[in-house]
């Protein structure tokens, strides 16, 4: 596979660290395990969003387990990189990732959505260690992330800000307002990743309200923009490295993914946007995902 670069300048190949086969294998295994964790959480709670959680597994894994400058022992560290899961519906997978990364005990995942739990239906920055911003209402991440970048400049703090948005979310006007602002201030500390899984709650994105071409749109907003296979770990890691190298403008990574990735009967189906699996479906999903792990 290759990374399709659309930039108005050249990125030298030696700016991108070579990621070893072993690292890719390890991260891929984590991603599959997070898929199982997330589905189990949704299954247990009988609520949640499987499709958009599964599509984002490689992206969230790459960020939380490799790319971000974060420390589970210091979740409030001033100079940590910030991650805003603007598509907060995918929080089951993020919660699972934060737990495996050591931000809180894995047993706590079982409390998700219970009254009194630190794990709310959508991310809550005040309750959950490792959650940088309360999300779940679509559209906010780009502008909030821009504000975080501006604060870093004023306070002379060194951190980067990563925002994961959905493609349905790219229908929100406020998202593009935020993009204009990031562009005006040339917030190179900001990287927006679009989980372009082509399916939203009510159906295919191109039927509900077409957003194509996303790459053209972000480029028009003066983001350094490139497209990758967002379910390919190596491409995700390389893209994040490249985004870090770009220091003249914000970056948008259009990550082409598959909604419901990894579970055959969930893939590309709007029905699985927000419905939990029943006993049989859950068992089949887990067995499919486990088979993938053993193949890796």
């Amino acid at each position, binding site marked *: 596979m290759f990374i399709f670069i659309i930039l108005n300048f050249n990125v030298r190949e030696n700016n991108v660290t070579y990621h070893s086969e072993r690292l890719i294998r390890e991260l891929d295994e984590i991603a599959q395990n997070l898929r199982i964790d997330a589905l189990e959480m949704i299954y247990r709670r009988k609520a949640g969003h499987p499709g958009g959680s599964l599509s984002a597994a490689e992206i969230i894994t790459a960020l939380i387990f490799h790319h971000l400058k974060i420390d589970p022992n210091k979740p409030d560290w001033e100079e940590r990189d910030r991650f805003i899961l603007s598509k907060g519906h995918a929080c089951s997978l993020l919660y699972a990732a934060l737990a495996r990364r050591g931000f809180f005990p894995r047993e706590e995942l079982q409390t998700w959505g219970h009254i009194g739990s630190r794990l709310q239906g959508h991310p809550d920055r005040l309750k959950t260690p490792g959650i940088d911003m309360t999300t779940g209402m679509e559209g906010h991440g780009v502008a909030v*992330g821009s504000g975080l970048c*501006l604060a870093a400049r004023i306070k002379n703090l060194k951190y980067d800000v990563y925002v994961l948005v959905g493609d349905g979310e790219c229908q929100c006007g406020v998202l593009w307002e*935020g993009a204009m602002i990031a562009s005006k201030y040339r917030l190179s500390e900001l990287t927006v990743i679009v989980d372009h899984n082509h399916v939203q709650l009510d159906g295919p994105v191109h039927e509900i309200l077409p957003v194509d071409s996303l790459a053209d749109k972000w480029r028009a907003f003066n983001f350094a923009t490139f497209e990758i296979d967002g379910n390919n770990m190596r491409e995700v890691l390389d893209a994040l490295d490249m985004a870090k190298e770009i220091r003249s403008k914000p970056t948008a990574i259009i990550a082409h993914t598959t909604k419901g990735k990894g579970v055959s009967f969930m893939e590309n189906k709007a029905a699985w946007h927000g419905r939990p699996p029943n006993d049989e479906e859950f068992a089949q999903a887990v067995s499919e995902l486990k088979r993938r792990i053993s193949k890796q």
Partner: protein
Amino acid sequence: MKKVSIRKAYGQALADYGAENPDVAVVVADVSSSVQTKFFAERFPERFFNVGITEQAMVDVAVGLALGGMVPFANTFAVLFLRAAEQIRTCVAYAKTDVKIVGSYSGLSNFKDGPTHHVECDTAVMRSMPNMTVVEAADAVEVRKMVPVIAEHKGPVYLRISRTDAPLLFDESYEVKIGKGVVLRDGSDVALIASGVMVSRCLEAAEKLSKEGIEAYVVNMSTIKPLDVELVSKLARETGALVTAEDHSIIGGLGGAVAEALGERTPANLERIGIPDTFTETSLNYDELLDHYGMGVDDIVNAARRTAKRRDK
């Protein structure tokens, strides 16, 4: 009485406070010269962000600044913050970010642009959000004193500012305390509880009432949330007859808050002076517009008489 611009006093106070507190940042949505954040912009360009006509994103940018340790003041016309109601509700109030929302051109004070730019329901919307503090300035001194107080108050605040030049009511000794109403005139027969520009109108009404032998308390209730319920109850017990006055709808604002407090704590007769439940019209003059919609001094006097009469029945 000398009249001084409330919004200009706010703008100058913000710039002065910016010198004291390096964490203060200002965002504005293309109305910097109108809402007077230009003074801050001139002195602290590195902490000033004019983000164009993007009210929703402006609030979100302020949220990001707050997450990064700043104390952002987000500024535009009060009516335009309604566009960003969800941002304010989710990212400011629920996420409890330290953002100060400053809604200028409140009520009917943008008389000449007409009903599109009048705002009757901002306090009602903001007041119903958990974690939100809602304050309104009655004159230039009060708004100047409010700037550091709300900046240093941890958490979301909505500050409501009129476009008008308002009579100067207070001197330098005036102190702003969030959650405390201030009795400006003692009385015994009725209590006039007001916020913003209606405070000076209530003081005038109280003089008129006094000539008829009705002695009215006048209270500047500059914090609408959390309401000074103790003071409202005390006045209700003492007078049994209250009038609220605000340049806001009679639904959901100060009048609504006082009615809720009375209903639950100390039932008493109440008349609400404010924008009736209607959209308004354009005018050549702010005072005329207030009078036209029943917020004149005589309207307050009549309301006081009515509420006292009901009590005495």
